[in-house]
């Protein structure tokens, strides 16, 4: 199956690959997986005191579409408030990356990772 140029770009030059200290009170970590393809995705955010995501990192073991979806997600999250980040939809990621129907679940995984990271941060801060 052919990947779109955008997927290839994110796959070859992934943005924001890395790891943050999960114990840091200002860091939220989302860890999700998809049994169908065995993909594992970790997405982390660092949130400023005024509730803005100042940094985002990810590490994904999976196919090109899963890597591109999480790479794009970290790009989009930076500079956003938690609410704005939480409203990022998998359909927007899939559209931007021109994912074929069989790879839509990769973008769903990225959306779920965003939500899991925000939830983890909110839990730490006693906001949930």
């Amino acid at each position, binding site marked *: 199956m052919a990947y779109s140029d955008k997927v290839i770009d994110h796959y070859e030059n992934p943005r924001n690959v890395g790891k943050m200290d999960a114990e840091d009170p200002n860091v939220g970590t989302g860890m*999700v*997986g*998809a*049994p169908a393809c065995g993909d594992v995705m970790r997405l982390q955010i660092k949130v400023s005191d005024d509730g803005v995501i100042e940094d985002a990192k990810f590490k994904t073991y999976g196919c090109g579409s899963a890597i591109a979806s999480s790479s794009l997600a970290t790009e989009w999250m930076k500079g956003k408030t938690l609410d704005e980040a939480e409203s990022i939809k998998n359909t927007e990621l899939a559209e931007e990356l021109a994912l074929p129907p069989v790879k839509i679940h990769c973008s769903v995984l990225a959306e779920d990772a965003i939500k899991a990271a925000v939830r983890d941060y909110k839990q730490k801060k006693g906001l949930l």
Partner: protein
Amino acid sequence: MSTCHFALFDLQPAFAIDLDQLAVRYRELARETHPDRFADAAPREQRQALERAAQLNDAYQTLKSPSRRALYLLALRGEHLPLEATVQDPEFLLQQMMLREELEELQDSADLAGVAVFKRRLKAAQAELEQGFAACWDRPAEREQAERLMRRMQFLDKLALEVRELEERLDD
């Protein structure tokens, strides 16, 4: 609805099955249903023979693989378990992440002996999951646990595939 995969091999639905016996029975059935035997038959019969051969092959591949057998057993009980659905199983996923990182390091250092050790650990982890599943899949009260173990098996399958691919690359 086609015949249950287990019934095709004269087996009762169970997780613990005799794989050698399964393979023997598969070869017998494959001979009986081989489409070549229907080369002179009417087109309708030829088509049916092809369908039977395909079903037999699908059944064999499903039952042979522990993770696919586990999924099939749960599906036989009428549970629809889409594997595309996101899993949030933090402790297990964290461990998976660490194992993938470890495998990446073994790749970078081209450490074949290390890969062999990794593979043994993976096999042990798979065996443990399979034992856990065998002990709970048919107990309604432990349905959630059985589903969780089945999903974990899929991740370890993927990891095993990556180990095999790495071995091939390092062998070259």
